[in-house]
C-alpha cells in the first residue's frame, strides 16, 4: 500500500458519499448548483484537514471517556473558523450555504474520520486522509451539483446555455433525492 493511498482512497474507492454513504444532509441541501456544491465541499475539506491533524496530534493526551466531546469541540472550532472567514470574504456563497456551514460540525464524515482514522494514525497520514475524504466529498457534491444545475436550470457554474427554465424539479427538494439515487446506483454499477 503506497504512502499516498490514504489520499486517493477517499476519491473513489471509499468515497464518503457514494460508497460509505455518510454526510447526506449537506449533499442534498447544497447541490442545487455546481458552485454551491463545490463551495460546500471545500469548506468541509478544510474542516476535515484541520480536525484530523489536531486530533491526530492530541489523540494520546485525551482520556478515552471524554474523547467524543473533546473531538467535537476541536471540530466545532474549525467549523467556526470557516464560518467566520466565509462570512468575511465570500459573503454570497456564505448566504447560499446558510445553515449548512455550522452544520458541518455534525457531518458524520468529519467525526467519523476522527474516530476511525485520525486518532489511530500519525499526523501526516491523518492529513492525507482528511484531504482525500474531503476531495472525494467535494467531487461528489460538485458532480451532483452539476447534474442538478444542468437539468434544473440549464446552466453550468452559473453560465446559462439555454434560455428560460430547465426541469425545475431538479433544483427543488425531490430532485435532490432522485438525482442522488441515480448517481449512487450508477456508481455502484461502475464499481462492478
Amino acid at each position, binding site marked *: 500500500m503506497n504512502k499516498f493511498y490514504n489520499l486517493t482512497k477517499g476519491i473513489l474507492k471509499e468515497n464518503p458519499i457514494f460508497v460509505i*454513504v*455518510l*454526510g*447526506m*444532509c*449537506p449533499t*442534498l*441541501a447544497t447541490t442545487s448548483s455546481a458552485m454551491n456544491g463545490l463551495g460546500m465541499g471545500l469548506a468541509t475539506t478544510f474542516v476535515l484537514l484541520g480536525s484530523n491533524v489536531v486530533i491526530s496530534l492530541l489523540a494520546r493526551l485525551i482520556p478515552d471517556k471524554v474523547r*467524543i*466531546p473533546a473531538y*467535537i*469541540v476541536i471540530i*466545532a*472550532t474549525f*467549523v*467556526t473558523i470557516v*464560518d*467566520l472567514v466565509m462570512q468575511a470574504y465570500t459573503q454570497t456563497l456564505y448566504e447560499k450555504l446558510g*445553515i449548512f456551514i*455550522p*452544520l458541518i*460540525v*455534525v*457531518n*458524520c464524515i468529519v*467525526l467519523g474520520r476522527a474516530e476511525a482514522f485520525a486518532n489511530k494514525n500519525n499526523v501526516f497520514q491523518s492529513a492525507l486522509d482528511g484531504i482525500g475524504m474531503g476531495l472525494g466529498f467535494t467531487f461528489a457534491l460538485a458532480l451532483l451539483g452539476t447534474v442538478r444545475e444542468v437539468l434544473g436550470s440549464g446552466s453550468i457554474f452559473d453560465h446559462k446555455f439555454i434560455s428560460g427554465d430547465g426541469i425545475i*424539479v431538479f433544483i*427543488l*427538494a*425531490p*430532485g*435532490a*433525492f*432522485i438525482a*442522488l*439515487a*441515480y448517481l*449512487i*446506483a*450508477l456508481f*455502484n*454499477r461502475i464499481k462492478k
Partner: protein
Amino acid sequence: MEYILIIIAAIFVNNVVLAQFLGICPFIGVSNKIETSMGMAGAVTFVIVLATIVTFLLQHYVLNPLGIAYMQTIVFILVIAALVQMVEIILKKLSPVLYQALGIFLPLITTNCAVLGVAILVIKKNYNLLEGVVFGAATAIGFGLALIIMAGIREQLALSNVPKGMRGVPIVLLTAGILALAFMGFAGIVK
C-alpha cells in the same frame, strides 16, 4: 392562531427531512422498521425540545450579552451532546428494551443535523421561547412522520422486486424523492 401556523408549516410545508434536508442519515438508517422509527422519533422529539430550550436560554442570556455569538456552534453542539448522554442514561434505566433496539442510533442523535439545525433556526427566525419550543416540537413530529411513512413503505418494499442496481440506498432515496414531491403539495396551505 400563530402557533397553529408554525406547527402546520413545520410538519407539512417545510418538513424537516423532505424539504429542509435535515436528519437524512437517521432517516435512511432507521426507517427500515416501523417500531424502531417510532422509538427514534420519540427520542429525537425529547432531545429537540430540551435542546431548543437550553440553547435558546444560553444564546439570549449568555452568548449575546457577552458578545460572543460566534461561540454558538461550539456551545450548541456541546449542549446537545450532553443532553443525548442524559437521554441514554435515562432510557437505559426506564426502558432497556427500547435502549437495546435503538442501539448505536441513540448516541448518533448528537450528529442528527435536525437537532442542531432546529436550535440554530430558532435563533435565526427570532422566535421567542414559547414559539421556539413549539417550532422544535412540531419539527420533531414532522421528522417522526417522515420516518414512519418511510418505514411503512420500506417494509412493503422489502417484499418486492427492486432492480439490482437500485437496491439499498438508491431506492430509499428515490422513494424519499417521491415523498418530497408529495409533500410539496402542502405548500400554500399556510397563507
